[in-house]
Protein backbone atom coordinates (compact mmCIF):
# COMPACT_ATOMS: atom_id res chain seq x y z
CA UNK A 1 0.00 0.00 0.00
CA UNK A 2 2.49 2.56 -1.18
CA UNK A 3 0.19 5.36 -2.19
CA UNK A 4 -2.45 6.47 0.21
CA UNK A 5 -5.23 8.63 -1.17
CA UNK A 6 -6.02 10.13 2.13
CA UNK A 7 -5.01 9.45 5.70
CA UNK A 8 -8.54 9.83 6.88
CA UNK A 9 -10.07 6.33 7.14
CA UNK A 10 -13.64 7.47 6.60
CA UNK A 11 -12.64 9.47 3.54
CA UNK A 12 -10.66 6.50 2.21
CA UNK A 13 -13.65 4.24 2.74
CA UNK A 14 -16.01 6.58 0.91
CA UNK A 15 -13.52 7.07 -1.90
CA UNK A 16 -13.23 3.36 -2.65
CA UNK A 17 -16.97 3.12 -3.24
CA UNK A 18 -16.92 6.35 -5.21
CA UNK A 19 -14.12 4.91 -7.35
CA UNK A 20 -16.12 1.78 -8.13
CA UNK A 21 -19.04 3.86 -9.32
CA UNK A 22 -16.88 6.34 -11.19
CA UNK A 23 -15.06 3.67 -13.11
CA UNK A 24 -18.06 1.56 -14.05
CA UNK A 25 -20.00 4.72 -14.91
CA UNK A 26 -17.18 5.77 -17.21
CA UNK A 27 -17.11 2.35 -18.86
CA UNK A 28 -20.85 2.50 -19.51
CA UNK A 29 -20.56 6.04 -20.80
CA UNK A 30 -17.99 4.89 -23.36
CA UNK A 31 -20.66 2.58 -24.78
CA UNK A 32 -23.18 5.32 -25.59
CA UNK A 33 -24.08 5.40 -29.31
CA UNK A 34 -22.99 1.77 -29.67
CA UNK A 35 -25.95 -0.13 -28.22
CA UNK A 36 -27.80 -2.91 -30.07
CA UNK A 37 -31.10 -0.99 -30.07
CA UNK A 38 -32.25 2.57 -29.50
CA UNK A 39 -34.12 1.58 -26.33
CA UNK A 40 -30.92 0.09 -24.95
CA UNK A 41 -29.09 3.39 -25.52
CA UNK A 42 -31.55 4.96 -23.11
CA UNK A 43 -31.19 2.15 -20.60
CA UNK A 44 -27.39 2.19 -20.58
CA UNK A 45 -27.30 5.97 -20.27
CA UNK A 46 -29.66 5.85 -17.30
CA UNK A 47 -27.47 3.33 -15.53
CA UNK A 48 -24.32 5.33 -16.29
CA UNK A 49 -25.98 8.44 -14.90
CA UNK A 50 -26.91 6.64 -11.69
CA UNK A 51 -23.34 5.44 -11.12
CA UNK A 52 -21.77 8.79 -11.93
CA UNK A 53 -24.30 10.50 -9.68
CA UNK A 54 -23.34 8.23 -6.78
CA UNK A 55 -19.65 8.81 -7.48
CA UNK A 56 -20.18 12.56 -7.52
CA UNK A 57 -22.02 12.51 -4.18
CA UNK A 58 -19.43 10.31 -2.55
CA UNK A 59 -16.41 12.19 -3.90
CA UNK A 60 -17.88 15.46 -2.71
CA UNK A 61 -18.51 13.99 0.71
CA UNK A 62 -15.06 12.42 0.91
CA UNK A 63 -13.46 15.74 0.02
CA UNK A 64 -15.40 17.37 2.82
CA UNK A 65 -14.48 14.68 5.34
CA UNK A 66 -10.85 14.86 4.30
CA UNK A 67 -10.91 18.61 4.82
CA UNK A 68 -7.78 19.33 2.82
CA UNK A 69 -9.28 21.76 0.35
CA UNK A 70 -9.71 19.26 -2.45
CA UNK A 71 -13.04 19.12 -4.26
CA UNK A 72 -14.97 16.08 -5.36
CA UNK A 73 -13.86 16.73 -8.93
CA UNK A 74 -10.23 16.87 -7.78
CA UNK A 75 -10.63 13.39 -6.35
CA UNK A 76 -12.07 12.12 -9.61
CA UNK A 77 -9.87 13.99 -12.05
CA UNK A 78 -6.52 14.41 -10.36
CA UNK A 79 -5.71 11.11 -8.72
CA UNK A 80 -3.46 8.64 -10.45
CA UNK A 81 -4.00 5.02 -11.24
CA UNK A 82 -2.14 4.07 -8.03
CA UNK A 83 -4.43 6.26 -5.99
CA UNK A 84 -7.64 4.87 -7.46
CA UNK A 85 -8.99 2.11 -5.23
CA UNK A 86 -11.76 0.61 -7.34
CA UNK A 87 -12.36 -3.09 -7.77
CA UNK A 88 -10.64 -4.67 -10.74
CA UNK A 89 -13.97 -5.90 -12.06
CA UNK A 90 -15.30 -2.45 -12.89
CA UNK A 91 -12.24 -1.36 -14.88
CA UNK A 92 -12.43 -4.37 -17.21
CA UNK A 93 -13.17 -3.47 -20.79
CA UNK A 94 -16.11 -4.91 -22.67
CA UNK A 95 -15.69 -6.27 -26.18
CA UNK A 96 -19.37 -5.73 -26.74
CA UNK A 97 -22.77 -5.99 -25.11
CA UNK A 98 -22.17 -9.45 -23.64
CA UNK A 99 -19.20 -8.49 -21.51
CA UNK A 100 -20.81 -5.20 -20.61
CA UNK A 101 -23.81 -7.09 -19.25
CA UNK A 102 -21.79 -9.78 -17.46
CA UNK A 103 -19.65 -7.15 -15.72
CA UNK A 104 -22.72 -5.16 -14.82
CA UNK A 105 -24.58 -8.19 -13.54
CA UNK A 106 -21.80 -9.29 -11.17
CA UNK A 107 -21.41 -5.74 -9.90
CA UNK A 108 -25.14 -4.97 -9.62
CA UNK A 109 -25.73 -8.11 -7.58
CA UNK A 110 -22.97 -6.96 -5.22
CA UNK A 111 -24.03 -3.32 -5.03
CA UNK A 112 -27.67 -4.13 -4.39
CA UNK A 113 -26.50 -5.92 -1.22
CA UNK A 114 -23.86 -3.36 -0.34
CA UNK A 115 -26.21 -0.36 -0.44
CA UNK A 116 -28.89 -2.20 1.43
CA UNK A 117 -26.37 -2.78 4.22
CA UNK A 118 -24.91 0.72 4.08
CA UNK A 119 -28.37 2.22 4.29
CA UNK A 120 -28.09 1.39 7.99
CA UNK A 121 -24.77 3.18 8.36
CA UNK A 122 -24.40 5.37 11.42
CA UNK A 123 -22.96 7.96 9.09
CA UNK A 124 -25.98 9.96 7.93
CA UNK A 125 -24.57 11.12 4.63
CA UNK A 126 -23.38 7.68 3.66
CA UNK A 127 -26.68 6.20 4.71
CA UNK A 128 -28.55 8.78 2.64
CA UNK A 129 -26.55 8.03 -0.48
CA UNK A 130 -26.94 4.30 0.14
CA UNK A 131 -30.71 4.49 0.46
CA UNK A 132 -31.02 6.15 -2.91
CA UNK A 133 -28.37 3.97 -4.51
CA UNK A 134 -30.07 0.81 -3.20
CA UNK A 135 -33.16 1.57 -5.27
CA UNK A 136 -31.05 2.30 -8.31
CA UNK A 137 -29.03 -0.88 -7.86
CA UNK A 138 -32.21 -2.94 -7.57
CA UNK A 139 -33.29 -1.62 -10.93
CA UNK A 140 -29.85 -2.12 -12.47
CA UNK A 141 -29.85 -5.71 -11.30
CA UNK A 142 -33.27 -6.26 -12.80
CA UNK A 143 -31.99 -4.92 -16.10
CA UNK A 144 -28.73 -6.87 -16.18
CA UNK A 145 -30.33 -10.12 -14.93
CA UNK A 146 -32.99 -9.88 -17.62
CA UNK A 147 -30.26 -9.63 -20.23
CA UNK A 148 -28.11 -12.41 -18.78
CA UNK A 149 -31.19 -14.64 -18.95
CA UNK A 150 -32.11 -13.61 -22.49
CA UNK A 151 -28.57 -13.99 -23.79
CA UNK A 152 -28.00 -17.26 -21.97
CA UNK A 153 -31.32 -18.78 -22.98
CA UNK A 154 -31.46 -17.10 -26.39
CA UNK A 155 -29.58 -18.48 -29.38
CA UNK A 156 -26.68 -20.88 -29.49
CA UNK A 157 -24.41 -17.97 -30.40
CA UNK A 158 -25.60 -15.70 -27.61
CA UNK A 159 -25.28 -18.51 -25.10
CA UNK A 160 -21.69 -19.06 -26.18
CA UNK A 161 -20.88 -15.36 -25.93
CA UNK A 162 -22.40 -14.67 -22.53
CA UNK A 163 -20.91 -17.87 -21.14
CA UNK A 164 -17.49 -16.74 -22.38
CA UNK A 165 -17.98 -13.28 -20.87
CA UNK A 166 -19.03 -14.80 -17.56
CA UNK A 167 -16.01 -17.09 -17.58
CA UNK A 168 -13.63 -14.28 -18.41
CA UNK A 169 -14.85 -11.92 -15.69
CA UNK A 170 -15.28 -14.55 -13.00
CA UNK A 171 -11.74 -14.15 -11.73
CA UNK A 172 -12.51 -10.58 -10.62
CA UNK A 173 -15.54 -11.45 -8.52
CA UNK A 174 -13.98 -12.70 -5.26
CA UNK A 175 -12.29 -9.33 -4.76
CA UNK A 176 -15.66 -7.76 -4.08
CA UNK A 177 -15.89 -9.80 -0.87
CA UNK A 178 -12.33 -9.46 0.35
CA UNK A 179 -12.34 -7.49 3.58
CA UNK A 180 -9.26 -5.48 4.48
CA UNK A 181 -8.46 -3.63 7.72
CA UNK A 182 -10.33 -0.55 6.63
CA UNK A 183 -13.48 -2.54 5.88
CA UNK A 184 -13.28 -4.26 9.24
CA UNK A 185 -12.67 -1.03 11.09
CA UNK A 186 -15.57 0.72 9.36
CA UNK A 187 -17.82 -2.24 10.00
CA UNK A 188 -16.83 -2.29 13.66
CA UNK A 189 -17.63 1.43 13.91
CA UNK A 190 -21.09 0.87 12.43
CA UNK A 191 -20.22 3.07 9.46
CA UNK A 192 -19.39 0.43 6.91
CA UNK A 193 -20.01 -3.18 6.11
CA UNK A 194 -17.68 -6.16 6.06
CA UNK A 195 -18.00 -7.24 2.41
CA UNK A 196 -17.33 -10.88 3.21
CA UNK A 197 -20.74 -10.96 4.87
CA UNK A 198 -22.38 -10.22 1.49
CA UNK A 199 -20.90 -13.19 -0.27
CA UNK A 200 -23.55 -15.85 0.40
CA UNK A 201 -26.43 -13.69 -0.70
CA UNK A 202 -24.49 -12.66 -3.81
CA UNK A 203 -23.80 -16.27 -4.69
CA UNK A 204 -27.40 -17.24 -4.38
CA UNK A 205 -28.53 -14.38 -6.65
CA UNK A 206 -25.85 -15.22 -9.18
CA UNK A 207 -26.57 -18.94 -9.07
CA UNK A 208 -30.26 -18.52 -9.59
CA UNK A 209 -29.86 -16.11 -12.50
CA UNK A 210 -27.18 -18.24 -14.14
CA UNK A 211 -29.42 -21.24 -13.76
CA UNK A 212 -32.40 -19.51 -15.32
CA UNK A 213 -30.05 -18.37 -18.07
CA UNK A 214 -28.98 -22.00 -18.63
CA UNK A 215 -25.39 -20.91 -18.01
CA UNK A 216 -22.70 -22.84 -16.19
CA UNK A 217 -21.22 -21.25 -13.15
CA UNK A 218 -17.52 -20.77 -13.96
CA UNK A 219 -15.33 -23.34 -12.29
CA UNK A 220 -11.98 -21.62 -12.59
CA UNK A 221 -10.89 -21.04 -9.02
CA UNK A 222 -8.17 -18.55 -9.93
CA UNK A 223 -8.99 -15.14 -8.51
CA UNK A 224 -7.14 -11.86 -8.67
CA UNK A 225 -7.33 -8.71 -6.60
CA UNK A 226 -5.39 -5.58 -5.71
CA UNK A 227 -7.72 -2.78 -6.70
CA UNK A 228 -8.26 -1.59 -3.14
CA UNK A 229 -4.52 -0.98 -2.79
CA UNK A 230 -4.16 0.64 -6.19
CA UNK A 231 -2.62 -2.36 -7.88
CA UNK A 232 -4.71 -2.49 -11.02
CA UNK A 233 -4.81 -4.31 -14.30
CA UNK A 234 -3.38 -2.37 -17.23
CA UNK A 235 -6.82 -1.12 -18.20
CA UNK A 236 -7.41 1.60 -15.65
CA UNK A 237 -4.51 3.82 -16.69
CA UNK A 238 -5.66 4.44 -20.26
CA UNK A 239 -9.20 5.04 -19.02
CA UNK A 240 -8.06 7.65 -16.53
CA UNK A 241 -5.77 9.21 -19.12
CA UNK A 242 -8.80 9.84 -21.29
CA UNK A 243 -11.09 10.85 -18.46
CA UNK A 244 -8.65 13.26 -16.84
CA UNK A 245 -7.10 14.63 -20.01
CA UNK A 246 -8.79 18.02 -20.05
CA UNK A 247 -8.22 18.79 -16.39
CA UNK A 248 -4.58 17.78 -16.64
CA UNK A 249 -3.94 19.61 -19.91
CA UNK A 250 -5.34 22.87 -18.58
CA UNK A 251 -4.68 22.72 -14.85
CA UNK A 252 -6.58 24.79 -12.34
CA UNK A 253 -9.35 26.16 -14.53
CA UNK A 254 -13.10 26.05 -14.10
CA UNK A 255 -15.24 24.36 -16.66
Amino acid at each position, binding site marked *: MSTVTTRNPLAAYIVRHADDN*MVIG*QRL*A*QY*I*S*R*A*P*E*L*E*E*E*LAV*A*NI*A*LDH*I*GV*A*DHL*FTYAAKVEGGGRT*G*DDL*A*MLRTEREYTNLLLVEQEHD*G*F*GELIARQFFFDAYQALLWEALADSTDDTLSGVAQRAAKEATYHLRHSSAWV*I*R*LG*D*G*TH*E*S*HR*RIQRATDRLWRFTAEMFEADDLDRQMAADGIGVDPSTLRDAWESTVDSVLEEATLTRPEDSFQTSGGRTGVHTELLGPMLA*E*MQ*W*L*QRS*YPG*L*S*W
Partner: protein
Amino acid sequence: MDARTEEERFNAIIDDDEKIEPRDWMPEAYRKTVIRQMAQHAHSEVIGMQPEANWIARAPTLLRKAILIAKVQDEAGHGLYLYSATETLGVSRGELQELLHTGKQKYSSIFNYPTLSWADIGAIGWLVDGAAIVNQIVLQGTSYGPYARAMVKICKEESFHARQGYSIMMTLADGSDSQKAMCQDAIDRWWWPSLMMFGPHDSESAHTAESMSWKIKRKTNDELRQMFVDQTVPQARYLGMTIPDPDLEFDEESGHWKIGEIDWEEFWSTIRGDGRLNRERIAHKVKAWEDGAWVREAATAYAVKHGMKLDKSA
Protein backbone atom coordinates in the same frame (compact mmCIF):
# COMPACT_ATOMS: atom_id res chain seq x y z
CA MET B 1 -67.38 7.18 -49.34
CA ASP B 2 -65.52 8.27 -52.45
CA ALA B 3 -62.02 9.71 -52.50
CA ARG B 4 -63.22 13.18 -53.41
CA THR B 5 -65.26 13.46 -50.26
CA GLU B 6 -62.34 12.15 -48.27
CA GLU B 7 -60.07 14.74 -49.82
CA GLU B 8 -62.52 17.50 -48.96
CA ARG B 9 -62.63 16.31 -45.39
CA PHE B 10 -58.86 16.22 -45.28
CA ASN B 11 -58.62 19.76 -46.61
CA ALA B 12 -61.24 20.97 -44.15
CA ILE B 13 -59.21 19.56 -41.25
CA ILE B 14 -56.10 21.34 -42.50
CA ASP B 15 -58.04 24.58 -43.06
CA ASP B 16 -59.49 24.45 -39.55
CA ASP B 17 -55.97 24.03 -38.11
CA GLU B 18 -56.91 20.66 -36.70
CA LYS B 19 -54.62 17.66 -36.74
CA ILE B 20 -54.53 14.79 -39.18
CA GLU B 21 -54.42 11.52 -37.25
CA PRO B 22 -52.93 8.18 -38.32
CA ARG B 23 -56.09 6.48 -39.57
CA ASP B 24 -57.43 9.49 -41.44
CA TRP B 25 -57.50 9.45 -45.18
CA MET B 26 -54.64 11.53 -46.54
CA PRO B 27 -53.23 12.23 -49.98
CA GLU B 28 -50.42 9.84 -50.81
CA ALA B 29 -48.01 12.76 -51.30
CA TYR B 30 -48.87 14.11 -47.84
CA ARG B 31 -48.21 10.73 -46.30
CA LYS B 32 -44.89 10.42 -48.09
CA THR B 33 -43.80 13.92 -47.16
CA VAL B 34 -44.65 13.46 -43.50
CA ILE B 35 -42.89 10.09 -43.38
CA ARG B 36 -39.81 11.49 -45.08
CA GLN B 37 -39.62 14.50 -42.83
CA MET B 38 -40.25 12.61 -39.58
CA ALA B 39 -37.83 9.85 -40.55
CA GLN B 40 -35.05 12.27 -41.45
CA HIS B 41 -35.72 14.16 -38.26
CA ALA B 42 -35.44 10.89 -36.32
CA HIS B 43 -32.24 9.92 -38.15
CA SER B 44 -30.78 13.33 -37.31
CA GLU B 45 -31.47 12.89 -33.60
CA VAL B 46 -29.80 9.51 -33.55
CA ILE B 47 -26.77 10.37 -35.70
CA GLY B 48 -26.52 13.59 -33.69
CA MET B 49 -25.57 11.51 -30.65
CA GLN B 50 -22.16 10.74 -32.14
CA PRO B 51 -20.40 14.12 -32.20
CA GLU B 52 -21.37 14.74 -28.60
CA ALA B 53 -20.73 11.19 -27.41
CA ASN B 54 -17.18 11.84 -28.61
CA TRP B 55 -16.66 14.05 -25.52
CA ILE B 56 -18.53 12.14 -22.83
CA ALA B 57 -15.45 10.23 -21.71
CA ARG B 58 -13.39 13.45 -21.63
CA ALA B 59 -15.91 15.80 -20.02
CA PRO B 60 -13.99 17.98 -17.56
CA THR B 61 -16.12 17.60 -14.43
CA LEU B 62 -18.55 15.04 -13.11
CA LEU B 63 -21.45 17.44 -13.41
CA ARG B 64 -20.61 18.29 -17.03
CA LYS B 65 -20.23 14.60 -17.75
CA ALA B 66 -23.64 13.80 -16.28
CA ILE B 67 -25.24 16.70 -18.16
CA LEU B 68 -23.71 15.58 -21.42
CA ILE B 69 -24.80 11.96 -20.95
CA ALA B 70 -28.32 13.13 -20.12
CA LYS B 71 -28.33 15.35 -23.19
CA VAL B 72 -27.08 12.67 -25.57
CA GLN B 73 -29.57 10.28 -24.01
CA ASP B 74 -32.35 12.77 -24.68
CA GLU B 75 -31.36 12.79 -28.34
CA ALA B 76 -31.76 9.01 -28.39
CA GLY B 77 -35.16 9.59 -26.80
CA HIS B 78 -36.05 12.14 -29.47
CA GLY B 79 -35.12 9.61 -32.11
CA LEU B 80 -37.36 7.14 -30.34
CA TYR B 81 -40.33 9.53 -30.18
CA LEU B 82 -39.95 10.45 -33.84
CA TYR B 83 -39.58 6.90 -35.11
CA SER B 84 -42.58 6.08 -32.98
CA ALA B 85 -44.55 8.89 -34.65
CA THR B 86 -43.46 7.67 -38.06
CA GLU B 87 -44.55 4.15 -37.24
CA THR B 88 -48.13 5.36 -36.83
CA LEU B 89 -48.17 5.51 -40.62
CA GLY B 90 -47.38 1.83 -40.93
CA VAL B 91 -43.68 2.16 -41.68
CA SER B 92 -41.44 0.12 -39.43
CA ARG B 93 -38.38 1.50 -37.72
CA GLY B 94 -36.35 -1.33 -39.21
CA GLU B 95 -37.28 -0.16 -42.67
CA LEU B 96 -36.36 3.42 -41.92
CA GLN B 97 -33.07 2.43 -40.35
CA GLU B 98 -32.26 0.42 -43.44
CA LEU B 99 -32.86 3.52 -45.55
CA LEU B 100 -30.48 5.48 -43.33
CA HIS B 101 -27.82 2.80 -43.38
CA THR B 102 -27.92 2.52 -47.14
CA GLY B 103 -27.90 6.28 -47.67
CA LYS B 104 -31.36 6.38 -49.22
CA GLN B 105 -32.55 8.72 -46.49
CA LYS B 106 -30.45 11.51 -45.08
CA TYR B 107 -29.95 13.27 -41.79
CA SER B 108 -29.13 16.85 -41.00
CA SER B 109 -25.84 17.98 -42.52
CA ILE B 110 -24.74 19.56 -39.24
CA PHE B 111 -23.79 16.23 -37.73
CA ASN B 112 -21.10 15.63 -40.30
CA TYR B 113 -18.78 18.11 -38.64
CA PRO B 114 -16.23 16.90 -36.07
CA THR B 115 -16.14 17.93 -32.41
CA LEU B 116 -12.54 18.99 -31.86
CA SER B 117 -12.53 20.64 -28.46
CA TRP B 118 -14.64 20.83 -25.32
CA ALA B 119 -15.93 24.18 -26.53
CA ASP B 120 -17.57 22.37 -29.43
CA ILE B 121 -19.88 20.74 -26.90
CA GLY B 122 -20.87 24.22 -25.74
CA ALA B 123 -21.26 25.45 -29.30
CA ILE B 124 -23.42 22.50 -30.29
CA GLY B 125 -25.80 22.98 -27.37
CA TRP B 126 -26.03 26.70 -27.88
CA LEU B 127 -26.04 26.95 -31.69
CA VAL B 128 -27.11 23.56 -33.04
CA ASP B 129 -29.75 22.81 -30.43
CA GLY B 130 -30.65 26.50 -30.49
CA ALA B 131 -31.31 26.26 -34.21
CA ALA B 132 -33.18 23.00 -33.77
CA ILE B 133 -35.37 24.58 -31.11
CA VAL B 134 -36.37 27.50 -33.34
CA ASN B 135 -37.43 24.97 -35.91
CA GLN B 136 -39.09 22.56 -33.52
CA ILE B 137 -41.11 25.14 -31.64
CA VAL B 138 -42.77 26.05 -34.89
CA LEU B 139 -43.22 22.38 -35.76
CA GLN B 140 -45.39 21.91 -32.68
CA GLY B 141 -48.07 23.37 -34.92
CA THR B 142 -47.47 20.92 -37.75
CA SER B 143 -50.60 19.30 -39.15
CA TYR B 144 -49.76 15.64 -38.52
CA GLY B 145 -50.91 14.88 -34.98
CA PRO B 146 -48.27 12.34 -33.84
CA TYR B 147 -45.51 14.57 -35.23
CA ALA B 148 -46.91 17.63 -33.43
CA ARG B 149 -47.17 15.70 -30.15
CA ALA B 150 -43.63 14.41 -30.47
CA MET B 151 -42.50 17.99 -31.02
CA VAL B 152 -44.27 19.17 -27.87
CA LYS B 153 -42.47 16.55 -25.83
CA ILE B 154 -39.14 17.23 -27.53
CA CYS B 155 -39.40 20.99 -27.08
CA LYS B 156 -39.90 20.53 -23.35
CA GLU B 157 -36.62 18.64 -23.22
CA GLU B 158 -34.66 20.80 -25.65
CA SER B 159 -34.51 24.01 -23.71
CA PHE B 160 -32.10 22.44 -21.24
CA HIS B 161 -29.87 21.46 -24.16
CA ALA B 162 -29.39 24.99 -25.38
CA ARG B 163 -28.94 26.32 -21.87
CA GLN B 164 -26.30 23.82 -20.86
CA GLY B 165 -24.43 24.64 -24.06
CA TYR B 166 -24.55 28.34 -23.42
CA SER B 167 -23.49 27.73 -19.83
CA ILE B 168 -20.35 25.95 -21.11
CA MET B 169 -19.67 28.89 -23.43
CA MET B 170 -20.14 31.43 -20.63
CA THR B 171 -17.68 29.57 -18.43
CA LEU B 172 -15.11 29.43 -21.23
CA ALA B 173 -15.64 33.05 -22.24
CA ASP B 174 -15.03 33.96 -18.64
CA GLY B 175 -11.98 31.75 -18.29
CA SER B 176 -8.31 31.69 -19.26
CA ASP B 177 -6.94 32.89 -22.58
CA SER B 178 -6.76 29.30 -23.76
CA GLN B 179 -10.42 28.79 -22.87
CA LYS B 180 -11.46 32.00 -24.60
CA ALA B 181 -9.57 30.94 -27.71
CA MET B 182 -11.25 27.53 -27.57
CA CYS B 183 -14.63 29.24 -27.32
CA GLN B 184 -13.99 31.55 -30.28
CA ASP B 185 -12.62 28.73 -32.38
CA ALA B 186 -15.76 26.69 -31.79
CA ILE B 187 -17.99 29.59 -32.79
CA ASP B 188 -15.88 30.10 -35.91
CA ARG B 189 -16.44 26.51 -36.94
CA TRP B 190 -20.07 26.03 -35.92
CA TRP B 191 -21.67 29.36 -36.88
CA TRP B 192 -22.09 28.82 -40.60
CA PRO B 193 -23.03 25.14 -40.42
CA SER B 194 -25.72 26.10 -37.88
CA LEU B 195 -27.18 28.61 -40.32
CA MET B 196 -27.12 25.96 -43.02
CA MET B 197 -29.29 23.74 -40.84
CA PHE B 198 -32.30 25.76 -41.94
CA GLY B 199 -31.80 24.63 -45.51
CA PRO B 200 -31.57 26.50 -48.79
CA HIS B 201 -33.19 29.84 -49.48
CA ASP B 202 -36.93 29.65 -49.97
CA SER B 203 -36.46 30.36 -53.66
CA GLU B 204 -34.31 27.21 -53.98
CA SER B 205 -36.37 24.95 -51.77
CA ALA B 206 -38.27 22.36 -53.72
CA HIS B 207 -40.66 21.19 -51.02
CA THR B 208 -41.53 24.42 -49.27
CA ALA B 209 -44.70 25.49 -51.08
CA GLU B 210 -46.48 22.16 -50.84
CA SER B 211 -45.41 21.57 -47.25
CA MET B 212 -46.59 25.03 -46.30
CA SER B 213 -50.00 24.56 -47.87
CA TRP B 214 -50.47 21.29 -45.99
CA LYS B 215 -49.22 22.98 -42.84
CA ILE B 216 -46.52 20.36 -42.38
CA LYS B 217 -44.14 23.30 -42.45
CA ARG B 218 -45.37 26.44 -40.74
CA LYS B 219 -42.57 28.85 -41.54
CA THR B 220 -40.11 29.00 -44.40
CA ASN B 221 -36.39 28.27 -44.19
CA ASP B 222 -35.43 31.92 -44.44
CA GLU B 223 -37.98 33.01 -41.83
CA LEU B 224 -36.69 30.45 -39.36
CA ARG B 225 -33.07 31.28 -40.08
CA GLN B 226 -33.78 34.95 -39.45
CA MET B 227 -35.45 34.16 -36.12
CA PHE B 228 -32.37 32.21 -35.10
CA VAL B 229 -29.92 34.90 -36.16
CA ASP B 230 -31.87 37.60 -34.34
CA GLN B 231 -31.89 35.68 -31.10
CA THR B 232 -28.30 34.44 -31.33
CA VAL B 233 -26.28 37.53 -32.30
CA PRO B 234 -26.92 39.30 -28.97
CA GLN B 235 -26.01 36.07 -27.15
CA ALA B 236 -22.65 35.96 -28.94
CA ARG B 237 -22.04 39.58 -28.01
CA TYR B 238 -22.86 38.86 -24.40
CA LEU B 239 -20.11 36.25 -24.48
CA GLY B 240 -17.75 38.87 -25.90
CA MET B 241 -17.13 36.62 -28.89
CA THR B 242 -17.02 37.47 -32.57
CA ILE B 243 -19.36 36.02 -35.15
CA PRO B 244 -17.30 35.01 -38.18
CA ASP B 245 -19.27 37.07 -40.68
CA PRO B 246 -17.78 40.39 -41.82
CA ASP B 247 -21.06 41.30 -43.50
CA LEU B 248 -23.18 40.88 -40.40
CA GLU B 249 -25.02 44.09 -39.62
CA PHE B 250 -28.16 45.29 -37.94
CA ASP B 251 -30.75 46.62 -40.31
CA GLU B 252 -32.55 49.44 -38.48
CA GLU B 253 -35.39 49.51 -40.93
CA SER B 254 -36.47 45.88 -40.61
CA GLY B 255 -35.18 45.41 -37.09
CA HIS B 256 -33.30 42.28 -38.18
CA TRP B 257 -29.69 41.21 -38.33
CA LYS B 258 -28.55 40.76 -41.92
CA ILE B 259 -26.04 38.02 -42.60
CA GLY B 260 -23.54 37.54 -45.41
CA GLU B 261 -23.95 34.86 -48.05
CA ILE B 262 -23.83 31.23 -46.95
CA ASP B 263 -21.38 28.91 -48.69
CA TRP B 264 -23.95 26.77 -50.44
CA GLU B 265 -21.30 24.72 -52.18
CA GLU B 266 -20.21 23.38 -48.79
CA PHE B 267 -23.82 22.76 -47.84
CA TRP B 268 -24.71 20.79 -50.95
CA SER B 269 -21.55 18.75 -50.91
CA THR B 270 -22.26 17.77 -47.31
CA ILE B 271 -25.81 16.83 -48.26
CA ARG B 272 -24.47 14.77 -51.14
CA GLY B 273 -22.39 12.80 -48.68
CA ASP B 274 -19.03 14.51 -49.08
CA GLY B 275 -18.93 16.35 -45.78
CA ARG B 276 -16.17 15.93 -43.25
CA LEU B 277 -17.56 12.86 -41.52
CA ASN B 278 -20.52 11.52 -43.50
CA ARG B 279 -18.88 8.18 -44.06
CA GLU B 280 -17.68 7.82 -40.48
CA ARG B 281 -21.09 8.63 -39.03
CA ILE B 282 -22.88 6.00 -41.09
CA ALA B 283 -20.10 3.46 -40.57
CA HIS B 284 -20.34 3.95 -36.80
CA LYS B 285 -24.09 3.52 -36.88
CA VAL B 286 -24.00 0.46 -39.11
CA LYS B 287 -21.28 -1.13 -36.98
CA ALA B 288 -23.30 -0.67 -33.79
CA TRP B 289 -26.32 -2.19 -35.51
CA GLU B 290 -24.40 -5.15 -36.88
CA ASP B 291 -22.52 -5.72 -33.62
CA GLY B 292 -25.89 -5.87 -31.89
CA ALA B 293 -27.44 -8.42 -34.24
CA TRP B 294 -26.64 -11.40 -32.01
CA VAL B 295 -28.20 -9.61 -29.03
CA ARG B 296 -31.42 -8.86 -30.86
CA GLU B 297 -31.57 -12.39 -32.22
CA ALA B 298 -31.10 -13.75 -28.71
CA ALA B 299 -33.90 -11.62 -27.28
CA THR B 300 -36.23 -12.69 -30.06
CA ALA B 301 -35.31 -16.37 -29.64
CA TYR B 302 -35.91 -16.09 -25.91
CA ALA B 303 -39.31 -14.48 -26.46
CA VAL B 304 -40.27 -17.21 -28.87
CA LYS B 305 -39.30 -19.90 -26.36
CA HIS B 306 -41.15 -18.20 -23.54
CA GLY B 307 -43.55 -16.16 -25.60
CA MET B 308 -46.81 -17.70 -24.46
CA LYS B 309 -46.00 -17.29 -20.83
CA LEU B 310 -45.04 -13.62 -21.18
CA ASP B 311 -48.03 -12.73 -23.28
CA LYS B 312 -50.44 -14.05 -20.68
CA SER B 313 -48.74 -12.40 -17.77
CA ALA B 314 -48.61 -9.06 -19.60
